[in-house]
């Protein structure tokens, strides 16, 4: 590769172009967001703000329930991730390292859930949530999303690699079952748990359809749903829409840049584990 330096330069150039192309819509969003642009087409083009202000941002923050939406998204994503980590690791441990009647059958049943498309369960889940009084509540936003089997599958595959001898040794030392799980299995599974945490967190943060149905009260909406209603409210005002979009992207981008190593490692590991 070092023999042809210009080839290497070409690689940098081409991949740079791709990266720029991928980023350019975000740059566009940034440019448009600093003015209450009503019209962004027209001759001459109105992309570069002639009188940039921050009123678009302040308007979005004050005229909508943005604070509520941000809190709801964060709360739901964090609590759901913690819940998934706890509940699904317990189930995965049972599948991986415990023998009990019906283990194989149950596992394949759970696995089959991986193939169920969201649109199939959407309406019934919604009707069930309604019957339990979960609509417009955090429980309704969180509980149904804990049933996806991906985590159980990932963690179980990983836990299969934990030597039985370690678990036996702990039991002989007097550890109760929950202690074995809590003290031995969980710490050893941290890489997979990290992967699952990131996948779950990201998925919840982006989720649109389920919160759209469940959270109709403005105060219960998550960020994507709130943003959608914002864009219909500020229909002709692209500046405000872009400001709203940017504000909603900012938290997860910051977190991502900070933790990007783990993000990428997590998603790679998740994919390769198939």
């Amino acid at each position, binding site marked *: 590769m070092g023999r042809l330096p210009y080839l*290497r330069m070409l690689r*940098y150039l081409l*991949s740079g172009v*791709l990266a*720029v192309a*991928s*980023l350019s*819509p975000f740059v566009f969003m940034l440019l*448009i967001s600093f003015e209450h642009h009503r019209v962004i*087409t*027209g*001759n001459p083009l109105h992309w570069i703000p002639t009188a940039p202000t921050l009123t678009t941002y302040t308007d979005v923050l004050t005229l909508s329930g943005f604070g509520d939406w941000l809190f709801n998204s964060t709360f739901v994503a964090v609590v759901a991730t913690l819940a998934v980590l706890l509940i*699904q690791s317990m*189930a995965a441990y*049972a599948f991986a390292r415990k*023998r*009990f009647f019906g283990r194989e059958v149950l596992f394949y049943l*759970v696995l*089959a*859930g991986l*193939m*169920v*498309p*969201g*649109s*199939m*369960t*959407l*309406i*019934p*889940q919604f009707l*069930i949530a309604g019957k339990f009084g979960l609509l417009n509540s955090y429980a309704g936003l969180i509980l149904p999303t*804990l*049933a996806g*089997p991906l985590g159980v599958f990932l963690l179980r595959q990983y836990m299969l690699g934990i030597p039985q001898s370690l678990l*036996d040794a702990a*039991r*002989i*030392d*007097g550890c109760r079952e929950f202690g074995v799980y809590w003290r031995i299995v969980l710490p050893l599974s941290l890489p997979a748990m990290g992967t699952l945490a990131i996948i779950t967190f*990201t998925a919840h943060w982006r989720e*649109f*359809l389920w919160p759209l149905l469940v959270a109709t009260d403005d105060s219960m909406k998550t*960020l994507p749903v709130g*943003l*959608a209603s914002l864009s219909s409210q500020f229909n002709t005002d*692209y500046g405000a829409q*872009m400001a709203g*979009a*940017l504000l*909603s*992207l900012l938290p*997860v981008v910051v977190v*991502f*840049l900070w933790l*990007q190593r783990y*993000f990428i490692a997590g998603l790679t590991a998740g*994919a*390769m584990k*198939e």
Partner: protein
Amino acid sequence: MTTAPKPQRHSGPGHSAEGSDRSAYAFLAPYLVLYCVFMLAPVLWAFGLSLQTGGLLEGTSYIGLANYSEVWSNPFFNNALRNTALYAIIAVPAAMGLSLATALLVHPLARWWKSFIRVSLFLPLISSAVALAIIWRALLLPGQTGPLNWILGNFGLPPQNWLGHPDWVIPAIAAFQVWSGYGFWVIVLLAGLDAVPTQLYEAARVDGAGRWQLFTRITMPMLRPTLLFLSVMGVIWNLQLFDAVFMLTQGGPANASVSVVYYIYRGAFHFDQLGHSATMSVLLFLLVMGLTLLQMRYGRRDEDA
């Protein structure tokens, strides 16, 4: 932790020597309860709904398998199927080609550059589809002065009515899908390329293999399971396209951009056709299941080879 333990002596409650572990049920219970209530019951309910007709407000009534025989002659369903198939057919190969090219381009470069590439491609993945669609809706405005058209105009390409003309709306949304998803492919492929042992390349080069042969005889075969996995995931993801249609076109000009999931959703909430929607979702389930099983079968065969 301790010295080698004595075999076959498990202390602790609920543990018999034969190995059936009653504590397992305690560990399983929380998840299984949630699974039964929010996964199993809805699936069964959806099957049940597909045997009924009616709506959310008006209630439903049993009509047997009539939905299944009618759905194939329903022109709107066929339209949605066709659109969705087109989305997948355009988006998946484009994403595959683009991501493979990008991964190969970037693989031998410096680590900091790879990091930058990964971040810039990854941004669409972690952003909510709603935010991205808001941006693209503005980008795709028609006329010579629409942002994308203006850029294309500088390259001499004619302006198009991307979201308003049925000929262009499907490629436009497919392009959106590719842009928002292919970062995942690149990252996975990069990891896949990393996993190819360099000794293989060195040994082949010693044998006099040229660049192209290195690629076709070593890289591609090693990547094949990954590519297969990615393409199946990509097809399944595109089969369930909803957010983009909802935000960008609401079904588009003359239903030209309606996807299957959007049709299911609209049918249930706007058209009061719960049974209809449930039927289509069952069919979608069968399709996804078929594809997944196919992938598992062929994927495993590749690994054994």
